[in-house]
Structures are given as C-alpha cells and as structure tokens.
C-alpha cells in the first residue's frame, strides 16, 4: 500500500491550514501580485536587472566526477548556473499571522528543493541559490502564507516583532522597513536589511481579521482558535510528550 503523508493531526481550521501549507499537492491561494523586480528590490541581494553573481562556474562547464548521487539528484536552476547562496528571512506575528517559523520550515521542506532553513522563535530564515530564492520568496509573499501587516521580510534587526502590535495593526519594526500609507496599502521603503529603496514597493492591503482567523496557523485563545478546542491535537501532543518523557524507560503504549 502506498504511503500517504498525513502532515499533522487536528480537526480545527488551524490544523487544516498547517496541513495545506505543508502539502505540496495543495495549491496555495494567490492573494496578491508582486513583480519579480519588486521581490529582487526587497531582498536587496542584487540590483534589479543585473546578472546573477556566481560562486562557481556553471555545472555544464565543469568536469564533474563520476558519482552515482549526482546522476540521481538533478541540480536546481540556481545550482546549475553556479549562483551564490542568499537568504530571505520572515518575522511573523503571534496574532493570527498566516504562518509561523516552525510551520514555514515544515512547509518549505515539503515544497521547495535545495534549501537550508533556520528556525528561531520569532523569525525564520531560508537560504538557497539566488535564482531559486527569488522564485520561492515570490511564492511566499504572493500566497496566503503572507500578510502585509503581520508578516514582514527582515534580514536583520527583527527584535520586538511579534508580541505587541502597533495601534495601526502593524508589527513593530525598529527599522520601519514597511509603512502603512494613508490609502491603506503597506509599502516597503527599505530592503530587508534596512537600506532605503529607490522607490516604494507596495505589497497590498493588510487582510481583515476574519480572513486572518480563517487562514492562521497559530492557536491563540484570545484572538483566534484556542488550542484546547482541538481535542485531536491536544491528544496527539500529550501522547508525544508522554512518550518522550518516558523514553529510556522502554515506554509501552497501553
């Protein structure tokens, strides 16, 4: 019998969203349009339109050793061209943001190839070849995994990001990379490390509370779905906790 991954437990909408983001067969809902040039500008790794700097010659020009693994694993476009390894980092709010660091890593590991994610409590960084990175970053920003107010691209200085929101609903950012303009559209005025951009990059209007609640991947008893309401999830977490605690004492499930 073929194995079908279950991705995660739970019956709540949060659990369903987590599974959807992880499942590569599920097509993430596209919410906004960002041009390739805008993504390149916000990432700040190269000037828009310039050639990709390389770390090594393209694989086609190299003499590769005779290796069965290399025959088995096809290189990505970025690896084929010898691009540099670059990164994108996201900081997510804890108030019903549409994705969270651990969830991002799970989702990216299922969906993308040739990546190296780093997961921290409030931010998540993913490194890969520059060409691939731009494709992945575009997907992460354009789809339901992004909200202009509660998720932001921050290469450095992410502190103070997640626990309180500004009075206008934006996440606190010491570098104020994105601002909520008067027409309600969030615009990036600096790239992800804090260097001012030549022009503003609009990433759309913040989503409303109802949408956020329906697309969030975090349990929150005050503003969203409470963890205790998802019995299947609680049972699963308790079981894992119990087995891990007893590990070494030869645990037997009753």
């Amino acid at each position, binding site marked *: 019998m073929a194995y079908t991954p279950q991705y995660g437990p739970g019956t709540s909408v949060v659990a369903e969203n987590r599974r959807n983001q992880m499942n590569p067969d599920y097509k993430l809902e596209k919410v906004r349009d960002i041009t390739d040039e805008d993504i390149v500008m916000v990432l700040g790794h190269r000037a828009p339109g310039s050639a990709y700097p390389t770390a090594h010659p393209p694989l086609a020009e190299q003499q590769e050793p005779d290796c069965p693994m290399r025959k088995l694993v096809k290189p990505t476009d970025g690896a084929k061209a010898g691009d540099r390894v670059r990164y994108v980092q996201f900081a997510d709010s804890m108030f019903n943001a549409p994705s969270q660091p651990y969830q991002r890593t799970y989702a990216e590991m299922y969906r993308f190839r040739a990546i190296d994610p780093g997961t921290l409590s409030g931010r998540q960084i993913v490194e890969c070849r520059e060409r691939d990175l731009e494709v992945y970053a575009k997907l992460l920003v354009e789809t339901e995994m992004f909200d202009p107010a509660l998720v932001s691209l921050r*290469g*450095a*200085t992410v*502190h*103070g990001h997640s626990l*309180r*929101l*500004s*009075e*206008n609903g934006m996440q*606190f950012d*010491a*570098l*104020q990379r994105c*601002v909520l303009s008067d027409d309600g559209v969030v615009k990036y005025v600096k790239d992800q*490390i*804090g*260097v*001012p951009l030549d022009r503003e990059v609009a990433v759309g209007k913040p989503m409303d509370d109802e949408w956020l609640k329906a697309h969030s991947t975090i349990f929150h008893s005050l503003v969203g779905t409470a963890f205790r309401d998802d019995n299947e999830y609680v049972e699963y977490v308790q079981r894992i906790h119990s087995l891990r605690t007893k590990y070494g004492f030869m645990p037997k499930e009753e």
Partner: protein
Amino acid sequence: MLGPETAERLLNAVVGIPGIRRLMVNGPNLPKTVPYGPARGKPNPNTNRKTISVGGTDVELRVQVGMVTLEVADESVIESIKSVCDEIFTQFPYQVQVGQYMKTQATLVDYAKYGPDADETIIGLTDPRRNDTPVFIQGQGMHR
C-alpha cells in the same frame, strides 16, 4: 503600541492630572542607526522617532511607547488616570496595573551618577548607557 501622535495625546492628558510625581515611558528602542547586519551603522529614518511636546516641554521619543509607568501621590489619582485613558483608548484596549514598579532606593547606577544623598525624585530613572537627564515637566496643575 502607540504612534507618536497618540503618545503625545496620552501623555499630555496624563500630566495634567495633579498628584503624579514621576513618569517613565517604556517600549522597544528605535535606534538612530541600523544596529545589526550588513547595513550596520547606516542612518535609520523612522517616522515613530519624533520630538513630542508634553506639558509644554519638548521630549525626544527614543522608543515606541508601549507602557507608561507612573508614580502617584495617592490612590485617588489612579481613578483619574483611568478616566483619562478611557477617553483616549477607544479603538483598542488598555490595561492599568497597580503596584510598585519604580525604585524607592538609589540603585548602583544612581549612586555612580548622582553620588550619595541623591534627590529622591530622580532615582531609579537612570539609563546607564545614556548621559542625558530625566525631563522635568513643570506644566500647569502639576503637583510639585
């Protein structure tokens, strides 16, 4: 957390209440230059870092205001602070907590800065990493 305009409105309303001795504004820092990363040291323009006017005195905001700690003369002042907050926080909630949140004795930093016999009204407000003194507001109706 409050934008500079709302913070100015709140602080101006609060300093008008008689019976407040000391006031401390807390929140995440808004650095003048980028502190980390490849852009470290470059200027950090930020519309939230502004000079606001509180009780007729200019105060330079270096943080985005998230919490205001007040030392009051007696409990009745807390009620008037609550009623002021009710008028200002109409779009989002606020919380008033009663307790002792300020130093009553000189800290080591106070000692290093002011020496022994420091003035009671300025202790516990010292930031060891800065040289500037607390701002003195002597507006009308202030209890001094």
